[in-house]
C-alpha cells in the first residue's frame, strides 16, 4: 500500500502511545497522533486537552485544541486552573506529546524565538502549556519533521527543558517528569542514550538511508547498534487517517 512519509510518521508516533493511560494532547500533529491511537490500538487511552477537557471522545478530528467536539461527550470539562493543577501538577498524566520548532541533541525544545529574545529574527508562538508539560508529565514524546533548521546542536531558547546539558543534568531539576523519551520524525525515530542522554537514531523509516538522516540533522548524529526499520502503517491506520481524521490531508500529505 502506498503512504506518505507524514502518514508513516503519524502512525509510528501513535504506536508509541501503546500502554499509556492518559495523554496530554498538544496542538497540531500531536492532536492527530493521539486521536489515531485512541481509534486504533488504544481505545481506552484518555485524552487530556489543556483547554480543560479530560476523557475526550472527539466525533471528528478536533480542528484546534479547543474545538467544541472535544467537549461534547467528554468525561469532564473544567476550567484551566483545575486542568493544570488537579490533572497535570497532581501527576495524573503519563505522556505529554509536544511539537517543536527547534530541538537540540539533548531534546531541549524551543518554541519561543529564533535569534535573540529581545531582538528576535523570528518570533515563534511561545510556550503555551509546553513549559509545564515538559516537567510534569511522566514522559515526553516529540513529533516533528526532520530538517537542519529544526535539529540544531543547541536551541536558541529553552522553552521546554529536555535533558538540558545531558548526563545527570535533568535529574538535578528534581521534577516529576523524566523528560523526552523519543522523537518521531518523517525520516526516522530517535531516542536518548542512557548515559549521555544524547539523541541517537534507533529506527530508520523504510527506504531512508543513514546519509539522508545525517543531512537533515545539524550535528553529527549517532546511530544505534541495533538499528531497526520502522514498521509500515497498517491499512487500518491509513484508513483512519484518510477517512476519519484528516480527509483534507492537512497534516498527512
Amino acid at each position, binding site marked *: 500500500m502506498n503512504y506518505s512519509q507524514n502518514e508513516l510518521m503519524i502512525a509510528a508516533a501513535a504506536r508509541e502511545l501503546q500502554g499509556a493511560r492518559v495523554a496530554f494532547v498538544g*496542538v*497540531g500533529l500531536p492532536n492527530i497522533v493521539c486521536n489515531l491511537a485512541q481509534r486504533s490500538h488504544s481505545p481506552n487511552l484518555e485524552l487530556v486537552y*489543556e*483547554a*480543560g*477537557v479530560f476523557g475526550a471522545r472527539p466525533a471528528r478530528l478536533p*480542528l*484546534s*485544541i*479547543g*474545538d*467544541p467536539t472535544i*467537549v*461534547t*461527550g467528554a468525561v469532564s*470539562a*473544567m*476550567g*484551566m*486552573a483545575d486542568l*493544570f*493543577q488537579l490533572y*497535570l*501538577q497532581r501527576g495524573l498524566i503519563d505522556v505529554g506529546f509536544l511539537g517543536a520548532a527547534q530541538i537540540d541533541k539533548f531534546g531541549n525544545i524551543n518554541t*519561543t524565538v529564533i535569534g535573540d*529574545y*529581545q531582538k*528576535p*529574527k*523570528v*518570533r*515563534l*508562538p*511561545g*510556550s*503555551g*502549556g*509546553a*513549559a*509545564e508539560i*515538559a*516537567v*510534569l508529565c511522566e514522559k515526553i514524546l516529540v513529533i516533528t519533521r526532520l530538517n537542519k533548521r529544526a535539529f540544531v546542536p543547541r536551541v536558541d*531558547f*529553552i*522553552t*521546554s*527543558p529536555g535533558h*538540558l546539558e545531558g548526563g545527570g543534568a*535533568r535529574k538535578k*531539576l*528534581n*521534577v*516529576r517528569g523524566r523528560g523526552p523519551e523519543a522523537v518521531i520524525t518523517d525520516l526516522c525515530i530517535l531516542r536518548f542514550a542512557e548515559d549521555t542522554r544524547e539523541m541517537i537514531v534507533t529506527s530508520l523509516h523504510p527506504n531512508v538511508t543513514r546519509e539522508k538522516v545525517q543531512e537533515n540533522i545539524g550535528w553529527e548524529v549517532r546511530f544505534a547498534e541495533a538499528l531497526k526499520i520502522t514498521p509500515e502503517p497498517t491499512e487500518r491506520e491509513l484508513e483512519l487517517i484518510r477517512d476519519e481524521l484528516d480527509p483534507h490531508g492537512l497534516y498527512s500529505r
Partner: protein
Amino acid sequence: MNKVISMQHAIREFVHDGDTVAIEGFTHLICFAAAHEIIRQRKQDLTLCRLTPDMIYDQMIAAGVCKKLVFSYAGNPGVGSLQAFRRAVEKGEPRSIELDEFSHFGLVARYLAGAARLPFYPLKSYSGSDLPKVNSQIREMQSPFGDEKIFVVPPLNPDVAILHAQRADENGNTQIWGLTGVQKEAAFASQRVIVVVEELVSESVIRADPNRTMIPGLIVNAVVVEPFGAHPSYVQGMYDRDNAFYVEWDTISREAATLNAWLDEWVYGLNSRAEYVEKMRARLEKLKPGDAYAEPINYGAYT
C-alpha cells in the same frame, strides 16, 4: 438592577485609553464583537492580556490599539503564526509592543492570584526553562514547609475584563458551559467586568441551576447582548468554530495592506456587530451544530 447596554456604550464607558484589558476565552467564547468596537473607538495604549492572543489581538495589534501584551501562546491555533503580532515584534509595525510572557499555567496562576487577591501564586513549572531568565516576574522561592523550591508569579488584576458567555440575566448573573477557560478568574481579578452574551434570560433561569453560574452580577458592570458576538470563534451548543476563517486569516494577515483592507471592510466600515452578522449571515447559518442536551437534574424544592 438592569445593566443591559449597547456594546458601543459599554466600551465607551468602561474601557479607557491606557487601560489593562483582558478579553479572555480559550478558543471558546472569544469576544470579537468587543474587540471590533474597541478598534472602532480607536482606543490608545492598551495593555492586552490573554493566554492566547489569537486572531482577536492580532487584529487589535494591527489596528494599533495595543501597547503591551501579556500572554502565553501567540499562534494562530491549528494554522501557524500570528502575522500582525510578528510584524509588531520583529519590525515594530505599525508600532512596537512590549511583551510580558508566561506559559499557560503561569498566566492561569496570575489570574488565580488576582481573583483571590493573593500577593503571589505558587506553581510547579519553569524548572529548566529559559522563561524566568527573560521575565523577572517569574521567581523561585523556598517553601515555608520543608526544603522544596517552587516558582511563583504575581497577581494579574486588569482594569477591565470582557467575557463572552452563553447567557446572563439583566443583573449580570452569568452561566457558561463547555470550556470555561479562565473566564471566572479573569472576572474576579478585574476592577470592572463587561459580560457579553448570546442570550439574555430571566433571573429564574439562572436561579434554576445555581451550580452553572460562573460570574455573579455582583461584580458585573455591564451586560451586552450580542448574538454571534464570538464569531469566528465559537459558543458551545450555539455555533461552531469557523475554522475556514482562521485559515483565511493567515492569507489576509500576511501583508499589512490586505489586513488593513479587511479591517476597513469588516470593522471600520460597519457600525455595529448587528451589521457584521447581517453581512456574514449566510456563513453563520452553516455553523449551527446538532443537538446534544444534558440530562436535566433536580435541585429539589425545600419549603
